[in-house]
């Protein structure tokens, strides 16, 4: 079935256009054109916006605001975002990174959406045509609103940890991914936010492990309770990359390594 493309100059216009049945927002195309190529006939019209604000990155007082149309390549090469560059580089190959957008990543179903795992750990705010909301709240609904940007406090390289496990090197679809924002004060962990990819149908927080890390030291014994709790509340998926059982078995191993690296 032929698709139609509707180009809007502003994001609010795109928001209105998306209210019609059979419409989807077109970011980089790596999700929606892929679905169309696969034979998804639920979409008849793709809507995009050429609003320049969607493609800008600004960093103000340590807080980054990244437009929804910013690509993974643009994030990876931005000098102010070096602490999260490895997350953007973990997405796809070079061509995909030149196309895939930050906004689109928020809508990617597992096993995709590794960048969103980091956004969740960073407690990012998602800016939409219908107001702002936290990444966690956004992911719970993930409805048809148009995302204009995400914003978060840029972590230091020391605070932020990220790992994506793939079976194919250097690029491959996620077995799982873990992002952790760890506040370390004088050898003790002050607080931690941990997010997991592929451990549910969308990125989720590992709240039990976060709690277990509070006040712990970054030693083998210190992190043991958090490592034991990391699987709590997860519902890993079974797909061509790995089984739920396998993902559940290797999660604590990679989480432990990430904390002690």
């Amino acid at each position, binding site marked *: 079935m032929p698709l139609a493309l509707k180009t809007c100059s502003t994001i609010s216009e795109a928001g209105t256009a998306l209210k019609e049945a059979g419409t989807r927002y077109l970011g980089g*195309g790596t999700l929606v054109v892929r679905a169309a190529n696969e034979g998804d006939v639920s979409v008849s019209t793709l809507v995009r916006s050429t609003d320049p604000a969607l493609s800008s990155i600004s960093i103000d007082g340590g807080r980054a605001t990244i437009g929804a149309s910013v690509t993974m390549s643009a994030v990876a090469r931005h000098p102010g975002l070096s602490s999260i560059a490895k997350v953007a580089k973990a997405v796809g190959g*070079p061509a*995909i990174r030149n196309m895939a957008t930050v906004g689109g990543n928020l809508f990617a179903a597992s096993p995709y959406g590794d960048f969103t795992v980091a956004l969740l750990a960073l407690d990012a705010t998602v800016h939409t045509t219908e107001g702002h909301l936290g990444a966690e709240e956004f992911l719970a609904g993930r409805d048809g609103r148009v995302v204009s940007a995400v914003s978060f406090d840029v972590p230091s390289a020391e605070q932020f940890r990220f790992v994506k496990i793939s079976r194919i090197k250097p690029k491959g679809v996620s077995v799982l991914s873990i992002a952790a924002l760890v506040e370390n004060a004088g050898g003790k962990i002050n607080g931690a936010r941990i997010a997991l990819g592929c451990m549910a149908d969308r990125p989720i927080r590992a709240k039990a492990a976060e709690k277990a890390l509070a006040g712990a030291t970054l030693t083998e014994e210190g992190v043991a309770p958090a490592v034991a709790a990391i699987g709590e509340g997860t519902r890993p998926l079974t797909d061509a990359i790995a089984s739920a059982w396998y993902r559940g078995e290797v999660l604590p191993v990679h989480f432990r390594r990430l904390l002690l690296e």
Partner: protein
Amino acid sequence: MAKVPVQFTLNGEEKADFVDGGATLLKVLREKVGDTSAKAGCQQGTCGSCSVIIDGELRLSCLTLAETCGGAEIHTTGGLATDGVLHPLQRAFMDEFAAQCGFCTPGMIMAAKVLLDRNPNPSHEDVVEALSGNVCRCTGYEPIIRAVLTAARSNSQNAA
């Protein structure tokens, strides 16, 4: 469904056509413009055989709508040879036996070209990273990586 006008530059030549709304650039290149160098592999963004260079950046033509390429400068492997003389990358792919069935080759060459355009002296690791979105089921990759490194060397010799 109404046709949409699209105009872009392909390998330095102006092209203009009416395409179906929602047609991918890959489909337009192969079926309308007649440049079949980009291959239709998975059409899911996984294999890289449809890779082309759009405004200096490597992209997957299977996931790019032709309509979004208005005014763009597009390069494909089909435009690399000049007056019957092969591009150094094409030459190196032959010399190093980097093509067996050849289906992945145009995509590999495009991915290698954007690498060499930015980094004329890449390391083995740089090449692996640059080709990481392109799948080859014949060669085991090593001959392809060697070919890219050989092309880089021959480029720097020519420049010297």
